[in-house]
């Protein structure tokens, strides 16, 4: 189950999608909108996607991560549009026979998602906004210089 939706996410539907009698471990990760980042107060987030490519990317990533970690099922639903502070911006559910594989697959999936799936986050502050990671974002440029 891979979804790109505006509005609140249904984490329980994703959990059910990956649960099975062969899966002793079901891990449900919620990426929630934090009230601050790098010491700066955040007033809300906004997500944009290149939707057909993002959906294809979520599925391809699942195939690769399932094969690498021997997990049985992956479901993922990033939320698009406005996400208020405290609400969930992304749910990832992983079902596996054992917890070690579920944990490793979760870490791996999220890391690749943040590199290779065309979804962009804009942070809103009291005095402005920034596209996270953008070439013209001062924080991203600083991170690139020190990397």
């Amino acid at each position, binding site marked *: 189950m891979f979804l790109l939706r505006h509005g609140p996410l249904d984490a329980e539907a994703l959990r059910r999608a990956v649960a099975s009698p062969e899966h002793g471990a079901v891990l449900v990760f919620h990426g929630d909108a934090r009230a601050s980042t790098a010491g700066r107060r955040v007033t809300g987030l906004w997500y944009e996607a290149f939707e057909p*490519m993002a959906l294809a990317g979520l599925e391809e990533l699942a195939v690769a991560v399932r094969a690498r970690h021997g997990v049985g099922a992956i479901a993922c639903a990033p939320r698009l549009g406005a996400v208020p502070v405290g609400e969930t911006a992304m749910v990832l559910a992983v079902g596996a026979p054992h917890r070690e594989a579920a944990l490793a697959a979760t870490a791996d999936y999220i890391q690749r998602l943040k590199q290779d799936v*065309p979804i962009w*986050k804009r942070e809103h502050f009291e005095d402005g906004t920034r596209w996270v990671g953008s*070439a013209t974002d001062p924080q991203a440029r600083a991170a690139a210089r020190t990397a």
Partner: protein
Amino acid sequence: MRVQVRYFAALREALALGEESLEVPPGTRAGDLLDLLGARRPALAAHRAGLRRAVGTRFAEPGLLLQDGDEVALIPPVSGG
């Protein structure tokens, strides 16, 4: 031949444009697009760092030969959900 070019996120806002149709010479490769666009879209220059290209719904190497009707997306650095 013509390709459709799509812009997203910071780049879309910088250009104030979501997509446009572009006439390119036969033999144009994915990696040539930024130079072809550069003259008419000077705001692109500040966004070239980390910019990737997709043709259809897949990332494309700069050497990929474009075909008439291709949809090319310019993908700024993503943050992935």
